[in-house]
C-alpha cells in the first residue's frame, strides 16, 4: 500500500512538470499533501499519539490546505499571469524528469540496506531533483517557491522513512517546513508583490559583477 502511494507521488511529479497553468501546480502540491498524510498514517501508526496528531496537522492542514490557499491568494493579489512560463518545452521537461526518476531507481538499487525501504529513497530523491529542476527551468519567482515546496515534500518522505524511531528528527523537519514556507511566502506577499512590477526572475539581475 505504501509503495502504491509513493508511486502515485512520483507520477504526480511527472504531471507537475508537464503542466502549463499555475493552478495545476497548486492542485498537485495540495494532492501531494494528502498522499503524504496517507503514507504517514500507514507508516507511523505506532508512534505516540501527540506526535501523530502533530504530523497529521502538518500534512493535511498545512501542506494541503493552508499553503495552497496562500499561494492562490498571492497569485490573485499580485495579478500574476496564470502560465508557468518555463524556459524549456514541457516535452523536454517530462523527458528530464523521467530520466531523474530512472536515475533515482538505479541509485537506490545499489543500496542494500535493511532499515530503509528503497521506495522511500526513490520518491525522496525524485522529488528533490524535480524541485531543483523546476527552480532552474521556470521564469516566475512564485514557481521557484513551488519548486521549493516540492523539495520539502521529498524531505518529508525521507524523514518518515527514518523517523519511526527518532520522532525528534521528524518534528525538526516539520519545523523547517513551516518556518521556511512562511518566511518565503511572507516576503513574497509583503514585499516582492509591491516592489517588483513583473514577478519575473529576470528582474532579479541587478546584483552582479
Amino acid at each position: 500500500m505504501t509503495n502504491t502511494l509513493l508511486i502515485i507521488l512520483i507520477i504526480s511529479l511527472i504531471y507537475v512538470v508537464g503542466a502549463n497553468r499555475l493552478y495545476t501546480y497548486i492542485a498537485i502540491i495540495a494532492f501531494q499533501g494528502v498522499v503524504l498524510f496517507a503514507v504517514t498514517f500507514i507508516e507511523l501508526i505506532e508512534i505516540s499519539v501527540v506526535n501523530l496528531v502533530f504530523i497529521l496537522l502538518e500534512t493535511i492542514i498545512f501542506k494541503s490546505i493552508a499553503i495552497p490557499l496562500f499561494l492562490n491568494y498571492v497569485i490573485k493579489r499580485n495579478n500574476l499571469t496564470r502560465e508557468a512560463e518555463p524556459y524549456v518545452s514541457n516535452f523536454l521537461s517530462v523527458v528530464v524528469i523521467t530520466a531523474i526518476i530512472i536515475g533515482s531507481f538505479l541509485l537506490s538499487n545499489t543500496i542494500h540496506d535493511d532499515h530503509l525501504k528503497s521506495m522511500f529513497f526513490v520518491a525522496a530523491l525524485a522529488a528533490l531533483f524535480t524541485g531543483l529542476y523546476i527552480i532552474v527551468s521556470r521564469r516566475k519567482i512564485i514557481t521557484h517557491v513551488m519548486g521549493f515546496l516540492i523539495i520539502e515534500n521529498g524531505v518529508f518522505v525521507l524523514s518518515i522513512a527514518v523517523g519511526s524511531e527518532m520522532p525528534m528528527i521528524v518534528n525538526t523537519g516539520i519545523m523547517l517546513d513551516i518556518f521556511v514556507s512562511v518566511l518565503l511566502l511572507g516576503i513574497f506577499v509583503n514585499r516582492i508583490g509591491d516592489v517588483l512590477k513583473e514577478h519575473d526572475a529576470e528582474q532579479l539581475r541587478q546584483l552582479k559583477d
Partner: protein
Amino acid sequence: MIGIYIALTLILSLAIFFLRSRMASHIVVWCFMLLQWALTIFAFNHKYETTLEFFTFDPLGLIFLGILSIVCVPAFYHSYVFFNTRKNIPRERALYFAAMIVLVASLSAAYLSNHIAVTWIFVELTTLSTSALIYHNRNERTLEATWKYVFVCSISITLVFIGILFLTITAQEKGLKEISYQVLVANAALLNPFWLKLAFLFIFTGFTAKAGLVPMYTVGIDAKDKAPGPAGALLASVLVNVGFLGIFRFYEVISNTSIVSWANNILIIGGLLSIFVSAVYILRVKNLKRMLAYSGVEHMGIVMLGIASGGAGYYAAILHLILHSFAKPALFFQVDQIYRIYKSKSIYDIGNYFSYHTPGALVLLLAFFIITAMPPSGMFISEFLIFRAMFESGNIWLLVVILILLTMIIWSLARNIFKMLFIKTVGFREDHITRISPLETISQYALLAIVIYLGFNPPRALVNLIHEVTRNLPQ
C-alpha cells in the same frame, strides 16, 4: 547559564523592538553586551561542561564565541555611528538592533551546541535575522539580495537536513540512540561508509552557503554587499565561522573512518574552486564591498585546503580562520567611512583617500597588507604553515596552482586599493567633504593589532585551545 542567556536575549530583543527611544536602545544594547561577555567568561571558566543537555563548552565553540564577543563590540559601536550619520528612523533602527541581537545570540548558541540538529536549528535562525539586516535599506536591490539570500539559504539548510537524515539512517542501523557529535565521533568507525559519504556531500554543500565556498557562495556576496557596513562585518567574519563549524564538526566525525581521503578530495575541490572563482571575480569587480566579500571566499578556500592537508594544516587552518575573523571586520568598518566621504562603493569613484581621511587611509593600507598575508600580518604565518602542510602531504602541483591564483588576487587587490589611496578621481568635488573623527578608526587599528599580535606571539592558552580542537583528527 545558556538557558538564562537565551531567555534574556529574547526579552532584550523584544524590548529593543518595542521601546524605540534612543535612550532605551542604548541601555538594551549595553545590557546585551554585558550578557554576551558574561556568557563568554562563564563558558571559558567551565570548559567541557554540558548545560541544558545540548550545549557543551568545547574548545572550537569557545574560540568562536570569544571572537564573536570581541567583534560584536565594535560592530555595535559602528552601528550607532551608522545611524548617527544617516537617516535615523526609529522603527528601522529598532528592527536593525533586534536583528543584530538575535543574530549574535543564535550564532553563540550554534557555536556551543553539541548536537547536529541543534546546530542546524540555530543556523536557520541566523538566516532569519540576517535577512532582516540585509533588507535594512528598503529598495529594489536590497530586496533582490534578501530574496536570493533567503531562498538559497533555505535550500541549503534543506540539504543539510537531508544530510542529517542520511546520518540518522546509518546511526539507527548501529543502534545509536542519539546523534550528538560526541556519540558520533566515538562510534564513527561503526557507521556505514556509503551513508556517511552521502551525508557529508549534503552537509558540506548545505553549509557552503554560510561559509562562503563554491557552490553556494553567491548569495553571501550579495548579502555582504547590501547589508549596512557594521552588519556586513559580522556576516563576513562570525557568520562565515558558523558555516565552517558545521563542516568541521562533521569532518571530525568522518576523519577516523575509511572515507577520510575521499572527504579530503571533496574539501580540496571545494577550496580550489573557491580560490579560482574569487581570483576571477576580484580581477574584474568594481564594487569595493563585493571585492572584500570575494577575498573572504579566497580565505575560506585556503582554510579548506589546510584542513584537507592534515598535519600542521589543522592548526594553521584554525589560526587562519581566527585571524581572518579579526581582519575582515576592520575592513568593513573602514568601507563605511569611505562611503561617507565618496557616497559610492564603486572603485571608479574613490580616489586620493589619503588626503581626505589620513587615519582611515592608513587602516586601508595596513589592512591590505594583512589580508594579502604579507609579513607584518599574522596571516602570513598561518598561510605559510598551510602551504607547508600541502607540500608535505604531496599536493605540490595543487600548491603551484594556488600560488599562481593568489598572486593574481594580490595583484588585483593592490591595483584597486592603491588606486583608491593615491590616484585622484575626475569630477570629485572637494568642497563638501565629510569630516570623520580619527577616533572612529581606533577599533580598526585594535582589530588589526590583534591579527599581528596573534600571528607572531600567540598566547600559550590559545595554542593549547587550538590543539585541543584538533585532538580528534588523525595526527
